[in-house]
C-alpha cells in the first residue's frame, strides 16, 4: 500500500501504543533505579526470583535492593506482554505492510532485551549491563515511533502541508517567509547527527554507570578543582584515598575519569548542536511551524538534562537524581529521533514544493501538492 493512500485510523491502537511507550519510559526509570541503587544482582537467579516464580514472589520479601530489581522485572514483564499485544494488533489491524515489520521488530527487541537482562544476572557480566541499558533506550525510541506512526496526525496527509499554508503567510520575526513544507536537507542532517551523538552519549553514560564505582569526578564544573584533572597514577591513588563512598565502593581509574570528562565535553557539543538545530528550524521553517516548536522543546529539554547532570554530581550521585538524568537522556534521544522522522516524512512527502525564496511559488503550489497526493 502506498504511504500516501488513505489509511483507516485506529484510535485504540494509537492510544495503546502510547501507553506502551509510556510504560517503556517507566521501565527505563525502574532500570535506572536498579543501577543507581547498585541492586542489579540482588536477586541472584532468573527467571525465578529466589525460590519463587517471579510473579508469586511475596511482597514481604521485597526488601532493600530486591525491591528495585524485582519491580524492574515485573514492569519489564508487563512491557513485554504489552509489546507482544501491540505487535499482534498492528499485524491484524494496521493496513500498512511496513508497520507489520516495525511491530515485529519491537517484539523481537523486547524479547532480546528481556533475555539480555536475565543473562546479565545469570552470567554476572557487567558488560552485558551496558548493552541492556542501550537496547532499552533504542526500544523506547521504537515504541515512541510506533505511537507516532499509529497516530491520526501521522496518517492525516493534510498535516504534512504547512500549517499556515494558504491561510496565513508565515513569518520569521517581521519578515515574510516562504511556507516551506519540506525541511532542508542540511537541517535534517544536523538533527540526525545530533541524535546519533546523543546516542553515543548514552553509551558513554551507560558505560560510566556500569563501572559501579560511583562518581569518578566529584565536582562540577571543575574536575578535582581543575579544568582538566590530573590522571597520573599518584593523583588517582590520592583520589581513591579520599573517596569515602558507602556504596559503589570500587576504586576509580584514570580511564573512568577521562570517560566522565568526555561525557561532559560531548554534552557541551550536544547542547551547541541542539541550539543550532533550534535556531535553524526557527529560521527556516518559521516560528509557528510545529517542528520549530519541537526543536525549541528539545533545547529546553537538553538544558534541563544538563542541569540534571550537574545535580547528579552535586548530590554525590543520589539515586533519584541520577535516574532522572537517565530518563532525561532517553527523552532527548526520542525527541531527536521523532523530529528527524517527522522531518523526513514531510520532506519525502512533498518533493516538488518550491524553495523558500520563491514565496509566490510556495503559495501557489497547491495544484502540485494535489498532484502528489
Amino acid at each position, binding site marked *: 500500500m502506498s504511504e500516501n493512500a488513505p489509511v483507516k485510523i485506529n484510535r485504540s491502537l494509537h492510544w495503546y501504543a502510547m501507553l506502551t511507550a509510556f510504560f517503556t519510559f517507566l521501565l527505563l526509570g525502574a532500570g535506572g533505579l536498579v543501577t543507581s*541503587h*547498585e*541492586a*542489579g*544482582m*540482588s*536477586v*541472584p*537467579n532468573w527467571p525465578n526470583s*529466589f525460590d519463587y516464580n517471579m510473579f508469586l514472589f511475596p511482597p514481604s*520479601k521485597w*526488601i*532493600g*535492593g*530486591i525491591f528495585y*530489581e524485582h519491580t524492574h522485572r515485573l514492569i519489564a514483564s508487563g512491557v513485554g506482554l504489552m509489546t507482544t499485544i501491540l505487535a499482534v494488533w498492528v499485524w491484524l489491524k494496521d493496513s500498512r505492510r511496513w508497520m507489520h515489520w516495525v511491530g515485529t521488530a519491537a517484539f523481537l527487541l523486547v524479547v532480546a532485551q528481556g533475555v539480555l537482562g536475565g543473562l546479565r544476572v545469570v552470567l*554476572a557480566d557487567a558488560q552485558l549491563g551496558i548493552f541492556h541499558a542501550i537496547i532499552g533506550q533504542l526500544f523506547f525510541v521504537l515504541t515512541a515511533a510506533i505511537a507516532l506512526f499509529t497516530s491520526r496526525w501521522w496518517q492525516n496527509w493534510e498535516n504534512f502541508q504547512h500549517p499556515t499554508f494558504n491561510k496565513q503567510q508565515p513569518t520569521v520575526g517581521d519578515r515574510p517567509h516562504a511556507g516551506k513544507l519540506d525541511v532542508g536537507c542540511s537541517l535534517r542532517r544536523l538533527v540526525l547527527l545530533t541524535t546519533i551523538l546523543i546516542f553515543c552519549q548514552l553509551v558513554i553514560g551507560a558505560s560510566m554507570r556500569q563501572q559501579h564505582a560511583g562518581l569518578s569526578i566529584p565536582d562540577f564544573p571543575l574536575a578535582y578543582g581543575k579544568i582538566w584533572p590530573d590522571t597520573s597514577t*599518584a593523583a588517582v*591513588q*590520592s583520589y*581513591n*584515598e*579520599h573517596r*569515602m563512598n*558507602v*556504596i*559503589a*565502593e*570500587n576504586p576509580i581509574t584514570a580511564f573512568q575519569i577521562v570517560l566522565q570528562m568526555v561525557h561532559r565535553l560531548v554534552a557541551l557539543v550536544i547542547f551547541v548542536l541542539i541550539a543550532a538545530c533550534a535556531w535553524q528550524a526557527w529560521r527556516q521553517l518559521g516560528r509557528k511551524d510545529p517542528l520549530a516548536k519541537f526543536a525549541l522543546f528539545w533545547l529546553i529539554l537538553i538544558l534541563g538534562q544538563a542541569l540534571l547532570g550537574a545535580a547528579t554530581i552535586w548530590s554525590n550521585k543520589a539515586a533519584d537524581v541520577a535516574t532522572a538524568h537517565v530518563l532525561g537522556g532517553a527523552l532527548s534521544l526520542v525527541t531527536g529521533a521523532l523530529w528527524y522522522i517527522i522531518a523526513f516524512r514531510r520532506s519525502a512527502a512533498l518533493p516538488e514544493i518550491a524553495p523558500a525564496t520563491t514565496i509566490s511559488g510556495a503559495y501557489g503550489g497547491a495544484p502540485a501538492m494535489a498532484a502528489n497526493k
Partner: protein
Amino acid sequence: MLAGVPVTQAADIIGTITLNGTPPPEVPYTPLMNDPTCGAMYKTAPTTHFYAVGPNRELADVIVSLKDVTGKSTGANQPPVTLDQKGCLYVPQILAIQTGQKLVVKNSDSCIHNVHCVPAVSGNPESNQVQMPGGADLTYTFSKPEMFMKFKCDVHPWMFAWVSVIDSPYYGISDQAGKFVIKNVPPGKYTVQADHRKLGTLTKEVEVKDTDVTVNFAFDVK
C-alpha cells in the same frame, strides 16, 4: 598457621603499621539507617572504617605478606575462616585466607542477604548466592592469589568485605595496635609487602635468619 608444616629453622617477622597524615573522616552508613530492617538494629548510624587508626597513629587492617612467595599454601589443611553478616554489615570487613583454604560465610541477621563474590583475577570464579536468615553457611575456596577480592550484598549495597587470598601461610593482618606477625618464616631474603585497601602498597627488603625480624611500615595520606 603452619600446623603440619615441618619448619627446621624459622623466625617471625613482626612489626607495626602507622599512618602519617589525617585521613578523611569516616562517613555514617546512612542507607543502612534508612532500611527499616537494618536501621532498627542501631540507635545511631554505624560509620565506615576505611582507616582504622589508633590514638598513636597505629593502622589496623593492613595485610602484610611476603611478595613473590607462591606455591607454599597450606590452606587445604587449615581450619576455615569465618565471614559473618551481622547487623547488616560484614564482620570482619578485611580478612585474609590462603589459596585452597575454606572461607565460611554466615548470616547471623534476621533478613535475606545475597553473597556476591566479585574476584578480579581469572581463575577465581564469581558467584552470587542467596542466604536466607538462618540459612546454611556458604563455603568458598579460591585457587588463585588475589588481594582485596570483593564480597558484597546487593540487597544491602553498603555491605562489603574484602578478602585477600595468599598463596602461602606467610602473612598477617595488623590489629588495632597496628601490630602484625608473620610466623615461622624460613631463613632467606624476602620482600615484605604491606597492602592497605585505600592507601596502596609499601614494600621493604628483609633477611630472616634464626631470630625474629622487625619491619615497620608508615603509610602516608596523600
